C-alpha cells in the first residue's frame, strides 16, 4: 500500500509523517515526545486532558496534538512559552485535587502525573478548593482503587471496553463529582469485573495499583524479567516484577508479541502459587507408607537402583514416562530422550487435555 507522506515543521525541524497522522504521532516519529495523560496508543482517542497542547502557527488556540491531524507545511511548536504555561496550569489544576502523598505512593517512578509535575516544576497548586474523599476500594485480592488519585483520563474505561470488552467501567455524575467507576459505583468485587487488570496496566497515576505490590517496592527499585505465561496456550508475555530476589507481581510489557499489555486474571494475578507454603522443597521418599524427607543424593540413588532393576527384570517396555504440557520444551525433550535412548522404550506421552 502506498502511504502519502506529509511534510511539516516541528520545533524548527522539517519532518515527514504518513497522511492522517496526528501531530502527536508525527512528533513521536521525529523523536519528539509530547507530554500526554489521556492519550494511549492502544486505545481510542479522547483528547480530554489537554496536556498535549501545542502551538500551531496561524491558530490562535492551542490545539490538543493527540487529536489534531497534520497538514502540509504546518508549523508546530511543542514547548513554546505559551504551551509550557498552559501545561503548568493544567497540572496545577490536576494536583489541586490530588493527594500529594507521593512519598508513600506505590506508583511513583511510573506515575505520569508526578513525572510531568517534575518536568514542569509544579510543586503545589495555587488553586485551593474542595478535595475528594472517596473510600479506597480494597474489596478484592488483586486491585487497589484509590479514586482520590484519579485524574479522569478515562484510560481505564477505554481499556475495559476496548481491550477486554467487559464494559465494566463508565463515567458517573458531572463536574466535580465526575467519577470513572463501575456501574452503580459498587466496589470491583461486586461488579462484573473479570480482574484482567487492563485498567491497572493503563492507569497513568496511583489510582489503580496492584495489591500484591503495595508497599513492596517503588517502581525504580523493581527488576523486570520478561517471560511467558505458564497457564494457557495463548502464550502471553509479561514481566515478572522482582525485588530482592522475590517475585512481587506481574507488570504488562507493551512489547509482548501476542498480547501487548493485555492479560487475563490468571496471568496477571495467578503467579503467587509459586510462594504457596505447600510447595515441596526437598525430595521425599516413601518409607512404610509415609513420606520422609531425603537428600537429593538418596533420592537419585534409590531411583537409579529401582528403575534399573525393574528394567533388567521386566524389559524396557515395563517403563513409561508421562511428560508435561506445563513444563518447558527443554524439559520435555530431556524426558523423551532418556525414555527412548536409555530406558529403550517409546512409552512416553503427556497429559494433553489439549
Amino acid at each position, binding site marked *: 500500500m502506498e502511504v502519502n507522506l506529509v511534510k511539516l515543521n516541528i520545533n524548527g525541524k522539517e519532518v515527514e509523517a504518513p497522511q492522517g497522522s496526528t501531530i502527536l504521532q508525527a512528533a513521536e516519529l521525529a523523536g519528539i515526545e509530547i507530554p500526554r495523560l489521556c492519550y494511549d496508543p492502544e486505545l481510542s482517542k479522547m483528547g480530554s486532558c489537554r496536556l498535549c497542547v501545542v502551538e500551531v502557527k496561524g491558530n490562535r488556540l492551542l490545539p490538543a496534538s493527540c487529536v489534531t491531524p497534520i497538514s502540509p507545511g504546518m508549523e508546530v511548536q511543542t514547548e513554546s512559552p505559551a504551551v509550557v504555561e498552559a501545561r503548568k496550569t493544567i497540572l496545577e489544576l490536576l494536583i489541586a485535587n490530588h493527594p500529594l502523598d507521593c512519598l508513600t505512593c506505590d506508583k511513583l517512578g511510573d506515575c505520569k502525573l508526578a513525572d510531568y509535575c517534575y518536568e514542569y516544576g509544579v510543586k503545589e497548586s495555587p488553586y485551593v478548593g474542595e478535595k475528594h474523599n472517596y473510600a479506597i476500594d480494597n474489596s478484592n485480592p488483586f486491585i487497589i482503587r484509590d479514586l482520590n488519585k484519579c485524574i479522569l483520563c478515562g484510560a481505564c474505561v477505554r481499556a475495559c471496553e476496548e481491550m477486554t470488552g467487559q464494559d465494566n467501567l463508565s463515567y458517573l455524575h458531572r463536574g466535580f463529582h465526575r467519577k470513572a467507576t463501575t456501574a452503580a459505583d459498587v466496589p470491583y468485587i461486586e461488579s462484573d469485573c473479570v480482574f484482567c487488570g487492563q485498567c491497572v496496566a493503563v492507569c497513568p497515576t496511583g489510582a489503580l495499583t496492584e495489591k500484591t505490590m503495595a508497599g513492596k517496592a517503588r517502581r525504580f527499585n523493581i527488576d523486570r524479567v520478561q517471560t511467558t505465561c505458564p497457564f494457557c496456550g495463548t*502464550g502471553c508475555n509479561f514481566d515478572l516484577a522482582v525485588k530482592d530476589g522475590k517475585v512481587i507481581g506481574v507488570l504488562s510489557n507493551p512489547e509482548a508479541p501476542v498480547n501487548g499489555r493485555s492479560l487475563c486474571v490468571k496471568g496477571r494475578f495467578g503467579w503467587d502459587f509459586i510462594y504457596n507454603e505447600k*510447595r515441596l522443597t526437598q525430595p521425599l521418599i516413601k518409607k512404610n507408607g509415609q513420606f520422609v524427607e531425603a537428600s537429593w543424593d538418596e533420592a537419585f540413588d534409590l531411583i537409579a537402583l529401582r528403575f534399573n532393576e525393574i528394567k533388567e527384570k521386566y524389559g524396557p517396555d515395563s517403563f513409561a514416562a508421562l511428560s508435561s504440557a506445563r513444563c518447558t520444551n527443554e524439559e520435555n525433550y530431556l524426558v523423551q530422550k532418556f525414555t527412548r535412548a536409555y530406558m529403550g522404550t517409546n512409552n512416553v506421552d503427556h*497429559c494433553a487435555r489439549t
Partner: protein
Amino acid sequence: MMLLIGTNATEAHPIIGYKMRQAARRGAKMVVCDPRHIDLVDEADYWLRQKPGTDIPLLNGLMHIIIKEGLEDKKFIAERTENYEELKEIVASYTPERVAELTGVSADDLYAVARLYATTDKAMIFYTLGITEHICGTRNVMSIANLAMLTGHLGRPGTGVCPMRGQNNVQGACDMGALPNVYPGYQSVTVEANQEKFEKAWGGKIPAKVGLKIPEMFEAAHEGKVKSMYILGENPVLTDPDTNHIRAALSNLDFLVVQELFLTETAEYADVVLPAASFAECNGTFTNTERRVQRVRKAIEPIPGQANWETICQMVTRMGYPMNYESPREIWAEMASLTPSMKGINYGRLENESLQWPCPSTDHPGTPFLHAGKFTRGLGLFQPSEHIPPGEMPDEEYPFLLSTGRILYHYNVTTPYSKGISSIWDKEMAEVNPLDAEKLGLVTGSQVKVSSRRGEAITAVKVTDRVLPGVIWMSFHYTATPTNALTSHHLDPITGTGEYKVAAVKIEKI
C-alpha cells in the same frame, strides 16, 4: 468471519477470546456453535445451540447445504483435495430437516450459517476441547477440516482451522516428541532413517515400535505390564477421566517417581517425589498455540534448590546415562540440530523475536500460517463421517448429561494454589438449568451429590440458563469436587482422549 465450535475462548483462552470479541464489535461476523450459553454468544451473529455430542451431524448438515446450493469451492476441491465423492455421498443424507432433528438447531439457522461461511472470503474456524473430548473427537476434527476444504478456506491469511491448544505448552510437549509415536518435530519412530539418526545422536538402542499412549499406560499398569513410571508435572488423578481407574493403576506400580511443585493426588502414590521448580525459576521456552516459540526466563532462584532440567539430568546421569548440559540453551541447540522444522530457531534469535516454526534455517522468518499451496501430505483428504452418538447417554437411572470444562479463574490444577484466585473462586459451582433446579428443589448454593456409574462427587450448584435443561456442567479444578470421578471411561479410539464432554449422571439434593 469467525466460526467457533466447542470453544469457550473468553474463559479458556481469555486474550484470544477478548480479541475475538473486539473483532466482532468491529463488524466481523461471528458464529458460535455451543450447547452452553458462553460469553461470546452475546457477541455472535448466530448461535447454533447443538445438543452435546452432535457436532458431526451439525457439520455434515452445513456441508449438505453448501453442496446443495453449489457454494463449494470447485477449483480448490479439484486441485487440492481427494476423496470428495465419498464426502458428497455421506453428507447427502444430512438434510437440514434431519440435522435439525438430531441437533436441535433450526433449519433456518443452518441455511444462514452455511451460506455465510461458504460465501465469506476470509473465514476461520476455531475449536478446542468441546470438539476433541468426545468418543468421536478425531472424527469431529476431520469433519471440521472437511468443511474448510469444501469451501477452500485454507492456506490464506484469515482462513483456516485453528485448534486452540489448552495448556501453556501442550504444543511444545508434542513438538518435543513427548508422544509415543514420534521423535521431536514429528519424526516418526517407525521410520528406520529416523531411528538411525536418533540412535546415533543419543547412543543406545531405540525400538521402532510405537509406545503406549496415556490410557494404554494406565491399562498396562493395571495389568502389571508397566511396572515403573516417571511423571513430570502432571496430575492425572485429578485431570484424567475416570479417576478411580487411574488410582488403581498407580497403586499397582512397583515404582513411581513424580516430579511436582506440590504433593498432588498423583504424587501421593509415588515412591519418590522430586520437588519441581516453577516457571519463574527456570530458563527455557514454551510454544504457544500458534507454534510460536517464546522464552521463559528465570526471575528468582529455584525454591527447591535446582531447576527441573538439572534435576532430570542428575537423575538420569545417576541411572547410568550421562546428561551433561550447561544450560537449557544447549539442550535447545541439540534438539534443533536434530529437528529440521526448528533448525533456524535459537536462543540468540529469541532474544529479539518470537518465531513460529517451521523455521528451517537461521535466516528464515518463521511460518505464521500452514498449508499455503500444499498440505503436509500433498492433497487434502476428505474423511467424512457418520453421526457417532456419545458412548454413554442419559437413561432412567442416570437422567442428566454431565459436561465438563474449565472456568476463567483457574487453570487446571495450579491456580487453586494461588491465594488471591482461590480466595474468590474457592469451590465448584455446577451449572444447572432453572427448569431442572425447580424439579429438584435447588437454588444457587444448594449442595448436591452427583453420581455416575463410576463414582460420585459433592458440589454446590448455580442455577442458570447458560446450560440446557437436562444438562449439568462442571469444571475440574477442585480437589474437593473430583469431577473426573464421574466422567466417562469411553475414549476416542484414535487419540485415546477421554470423553469428558458427555457422561450420564444423577443429581440428588443433600
